[in-house]
């Protein structure tokens, strides 16, 4: 069965320092993986996605994630945090051979950015 685990429920960084949000997944087949971001009082927005092309995926706002099959990980990183990055981040996995409706969502990681 597919599953996704976000290893940290809350991450706090200082502005200008690197961000690392960790995600591990379990999937029987080649998965598609996504990161979504949810800013306070705003809708969910796609940050980036992996669909079996390049393993290093670049997204919006300077974020990127690397698909590591051997580690079943899809960690989200950013070299330098900005105050506007403070939000809730969700890692999502789907099996591209399965049904779209069974997207599996992580419980989210709340990112705080301190001045």
């Amino acid at each position, binding site marked *: 069965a597919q599953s996704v685990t976000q290893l940290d429920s809350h991450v706090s960084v200082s502005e200008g320092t690197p961000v690392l949000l960790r995600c591990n997944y379990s999937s029987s087949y080649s998965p598609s993986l996504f990161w979504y971001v949810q800013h306070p009082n*705003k*809708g969910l927005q796609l940050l980036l996605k992996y669909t079996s092309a390049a393993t290093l995926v670049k997204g919006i706002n300077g974020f990127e994630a690397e698909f590591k099959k051997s580690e079943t990980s899809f960690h989200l990183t950013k070299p330098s945090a900005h105050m506007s990055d403070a939000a809730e981040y969700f890692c999502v996995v789907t099996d591209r*051979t399965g*049904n*779209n*409706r069974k*997207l599996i*969502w992580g*419980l989210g990681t709340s990112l705080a950015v301190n001045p």
Partner: protein
Amino acid sequence: GAGVSQSPSNKVTEKGKDVELRCDPISGHTALYWYRQSLGQGLEFLIYFQGNSAPDKSGLPSDRFSAERTGGSVSTLTIQRTQQEDSAVYLCASSLASPGAGRETQYFGPGTRLLVL
């Protein structure tokens, strides 16, 4: 409009009343999803519509919840005899049909915040 829209943005109701939540998906998106997000939690899948196929209702928490999609576009989620535990943000998303590379990205509406007193 280019995005998914939902109405109302906020709804306060009394326990036992019925509520209807509306979703307008992106034009051309044949797949439509409803999710529920409780405070501090991830997304809970409720129901999925795909074209003219029978909807997948496997996520609906009880028979008080129902949804329909008219004409393959607008969808309405109805909660009958609301309970306090129904209080949450209800999110709608749409996507291009079928799983497959690049097609399963879901685009979300802003949500309806439901409070049952």
